[in-house]
C-alpha cells in the first residue's frame, strides 16, 4: 500500500467510490424514510456520510465518519427546541415590545423573523462542529471550539454592513465568516488558520453583483409599468445563478488555498466551469429521471380516465375500485418521482462535485504532520482542552 501519493512534493487527494453503492444507499434511505415516517433519515444520513467521507482520500488515506444516527436525531430535536423557543417565547416578547413602542405588531414580526438569522448561523456552526468532531483522518479527530454565539453575532453584523453597503461588502462577509470558522477548527492538536484578505474575493464577486443589479432593475421596471422587462429576468436570472455558482467555487478554492495547519499548506483549485457543467447536466438528468414515473402514471391515468386531468382526483374516486387503483398508482408515482430525483442528485451531482473538489486538493509540507498529536479524548463532544478558544485573530 502506498503511504504517500506524491504529486510534485505534495500529497495529492484521491477520490474513490462506487456510485452504484451510493445510489443503493440513497434509494434505501428514501424508501425506508418514507416507510418509517422520516425516522430512517438519520440512519440514512450516517450511511451517506460514511460513503462520502470514505471516498475522499487526502494523501491516500480516507476520511472516517464516526457519527451515529441517535446523535444526529438528538441534534435535530435540539434544533427543533431552538425553533420552538423562537416561536413561543421570542416572537411574543418582541411583538409585545413592538406594540408598546410603536402601536403596531408588524415591526415586531419583522424583527422576530430577522431573529431567525442568528439562530440559523448558530445552528449551522453547531452542525459543522458536530460533523467535524465525528471526522477522523489517519486516526486523528478534527474538532471545533465553542464559538456559535460569536459566530451568530458576527453574521448579523456582517449582514447589516452588507445591506448598508448595498451588497458591495458581501465578499467581506464570506471571508470573515470563513475565517471565524477556520480559526476555530482543529486537527488533533493543530489549529487551522485562515490567511489572505477578503479583497481577493472581489473579482469573482463582480459578475454576481452586476447580474444581481440587472435582475433587481428588471424586476423594478417590470412591476412599475413595463411588464415586458420581466422577460429579461429569465436570461439575467440564469446569469445570476451561474455567477453565484462560479463565485462560490472560486472563493472556496481561494480561501482553502490560504489555509494553514501547523506548517501544512493546502492548494485547492476547483474549476467553476466544471462544477457548473456537473450541476447543469446532473440536475437536468435528475429532473428527467424524476419525470419518468410521472409520465408513466399519466399514461395509466389517461387510459382509465380519458378526460380532463385537472379533475382527476374527484373523477377517479367516483369511478370506484379501478379509479382508486389509479389513484394509488398516481400517489406511488409521485413518491417514485421524488425518490429518483434524490438518488440522481446524489450520484450525478453531489458525488461528482465532491470528487472534483477532492481531486483539486494538494497538501504541501506534509512533514509537519509529525508534530501533530491526538487531543486527549475525554469522551465528550468537545474535549475540555478545547473549551478555551485561545484564538488570536
Amino acid at each position: 500500500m502506498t503511504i504517500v501519493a506524491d504529486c510534485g512534493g505534495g500529497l495529492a487527494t484521491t477520490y474513490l467510490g462506487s456510485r452504484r453503492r451510493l445510489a443503493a444507499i440513497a434509494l434505501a434511505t428514501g424508501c425506508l424514510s418514507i416507510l418509517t415516517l422520516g425516522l430512517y433519515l438519520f440512519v440514512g444520513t450516517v450511511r451517506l456520510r460514511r460513503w462520502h467521507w470514505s471516498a475522499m482520500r487526502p494523501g491516500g488515506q480516507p476520511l472516517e465518519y464516526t457519527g451515529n444516527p441517535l446523535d444526529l436525531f438528538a441534534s435535530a430535536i435540539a434544533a427543533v427546541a431552538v425553533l420552538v423557543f423562537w416561536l413561543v417565547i421570542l416572537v411574543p416578547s418582541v411583538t409585545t415590545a413592538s406594540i408598546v413602542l410603536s402601536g403596531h405588531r408588524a415591526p415586531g414580526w419583522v424583527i422576530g423573523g430577522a431573529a431567525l438569522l442568528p439562530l440559523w448561523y448558530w445552528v449551522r456552526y453547531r452542525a459543522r462542529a458536530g460533523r467535524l468532531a465525528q471526522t477522523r483522518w489517519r486516526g486523528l479527530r478534527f474538532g471545533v471550539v465553542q464559538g456559535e454565539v460569536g459566530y451568530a453575532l458576527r453574521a448579523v453584523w456582517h449582514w447589516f454592513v452588507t445591506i448598508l453597503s448595498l451588497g458591495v461588502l458581501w465578499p467581506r462577509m464570506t471571508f470573515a465568516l470563513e475565517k471565524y470558522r477556520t480559526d476555530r477548527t482543529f486537527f488533533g492538536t493543530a489549529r487551522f488558520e485562515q490567511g489572505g484578505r477578503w479583497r481577493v474575493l472581489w473579482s469573482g464577486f463582480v459578475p454576481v453583483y452586476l447580474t444581481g443589479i440587472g435582475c433587481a432593475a428588471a424586476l423594478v421596471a417590470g412591476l412599475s409599468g413595463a411588464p415586458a422587462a420581466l422577460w429579461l429576468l429569465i436570461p439575467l436570472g440564469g446569469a445570476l445563478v451561474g455567477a453565484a455558482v462560479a463565485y462560490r467555487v472560486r472563493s472556496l478554492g481561494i480561501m482553502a488555498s490560504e489555509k494553514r495547519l501547523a506548517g501544512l499548506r493546502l492548494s485547492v483549485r476547483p474549476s467553476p466551469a466544471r462544477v457548473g457543467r456537473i450541476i447543469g447536466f446532473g440536475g437536468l438528468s435528475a429532473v428527467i429521471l424524476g419525470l419518468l414515473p410521472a409520465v408513466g402514471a399519466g399514461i395509466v391515468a389517461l387510459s382509465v380516465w380519458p378526460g380532463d386531468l385537472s379533475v382527476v382526483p374527484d373523477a377517479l374516486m367516483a369511478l370506484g375500485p379501478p379509479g382508486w387503483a389509479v389513484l394509488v398508482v398516481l400517489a406511488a408515482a409521485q413518491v417514485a418521482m421524488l425518490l429518483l430525483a434524490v438518488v440522481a442528485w446524489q450520484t450525478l451531482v453531489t458525488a461528482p462535485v465532491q470528487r472534483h473538489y477532492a481531486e483539486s486538493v494538494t497538501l504541501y509540507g506534509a512533514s509537519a504532520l509529525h508534530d501533530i498529536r491526538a487531543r486527549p479524548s475525554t469522551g465528550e463532544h468537545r474535549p475540555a482542552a478545547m473549551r478555551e478558544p485561545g484564538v488570536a485573530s
Partner: protein
Amino acid sequence: MTLRTVISVGLNVAPYQGRADYFDGLTPVPEPVSLSFADESSAKGHDRGQDTHHGTGPALVIARRGGEPLRWPLGSLRALPGRAGADDGLILGVAGGGAARLMLDSADTALIRARAHRLDHRFHPSRWRRATARILGAVLCIGVMIGVLGPAVTGGLARGLPTDVRSALGDQMQDRIRRALDPAGDGVPLCTAPEGMAALRKIAARLGAATAGPGSVPESIRVSVLDHPEIIALSLPGGRVVLFRGVIQAAASAEEVAAVLAHALGHISGADPTRRALGPAGFVGGLGLNLADAAGGRGAPAVVTRVVAARHAPWAEAAARADAVARLAAAGVALESGRGFVDGLARAEDGPAPALRHYLPTTPPPSGTAPGPLLSGSEWAALRATCTGNGPDGSGA
C-alpha cells in the same frame, strides 16, 4: 472453523506475512508494519509475559519496526463500515472505538475475513445513553416551552398590556380583517343601521352587566357587525366583538345571538384574543394574511377565512363555553329548547347551521329567573335588518 485449523496445522506452508500501514491514533503518520497470525498454542509457547494484557486467543500480530509487537485478538477485530470503495482493502480497528487503524491491501482481505469472524460487528461505540439523555432533555424542553413557559409568557404579556393599547390593537385588527376579506375594494363595510345596532347594544349590555359570573370583562365591550355572509363571531383585544352578518342571519332568535355574544365575551374574559394576538398563532396568522394578500388570486379568500375563523386552543374554548353558560344564566337568557343543545343539535332538522353550533352552549343554561324575552319583535326585526342599508349585497334576509 476448518479454515482456522488448516492454517495453524499446515506450518510447512509459508506462514502468513502481510504488510500494512499502521496509524497508532496518536500521530497522523503512517508506520509500515508486517502482519502475522498467532494462535493459542503458539501464543502459549511465545513470550508469555508480554501478551497477558491482550489475552491468549488467536490474534493478529502487528510487528512494528521500533517497538514491541501488538496483538489484536481476532475476535475483536472490526472493519470500518460503509466504505465507498468497492474492493480496495480493509481498514481495521479494535472493537470499542479505539483510534488505532490498520490499512490493508485488498490482497489480504480474504485471509483476514476468513479468520476474523466478527469483522462486521459494531465498530463505533453507540453511546446511546448519552444520545438518549440528550433526546429526552430536548423533548422535555420543547414540552415545557409549549405547555408551560410559552403560555405563561404570552399570558403575562397580554395581562400587562395597558387597556388603551389593547383597544387600539383590537381596532387595528378589525381594520386588517376587513381589508383582507375584501382585497379588491376598500374593506368589508360595517353595518350601522341605528335601530339594529341599538338592539345589539341592548343584548350586550344585559350580558355585560352580568359580570357576576366566573370571569369579568374589564374593558367596555364594543360590538360591531361586518357585512359578510360567513358565520363567524370574532373576539378581538380591547373588548371588541365582531359579528359577521351570517351569524345574525343564521340565528333563530335574539337569544341565540346572545349566546354567540356570550361565547365571545367568554374569550374576552379569559384574555384569549390578546394572548393570541401576541403569541405564535398571531404571528402565523399575520403571515398568512400577508401571503394571501401577496398571492391575491385563487385560494386567497379561503386562506383569509381560515385565518380569521381560527379557533382558540381547546382549553380556551372550553373555558369560554363555561363562562358563556354562566353568563347567560346570570343574565336570565333562556334558549329555546326546541333547537336542542346536547344531542338534539345534530338531529333537529331546523337546527342551527354547523358553523353556528360552535358558538352555542352544548348544555342548556340553568333556567334561572327569566325576566322576559331579550328583545321585542320589532327590535329583533331591526337587528336582522342591520345590514340592509349597505346595498344589494347586504340586503339578503
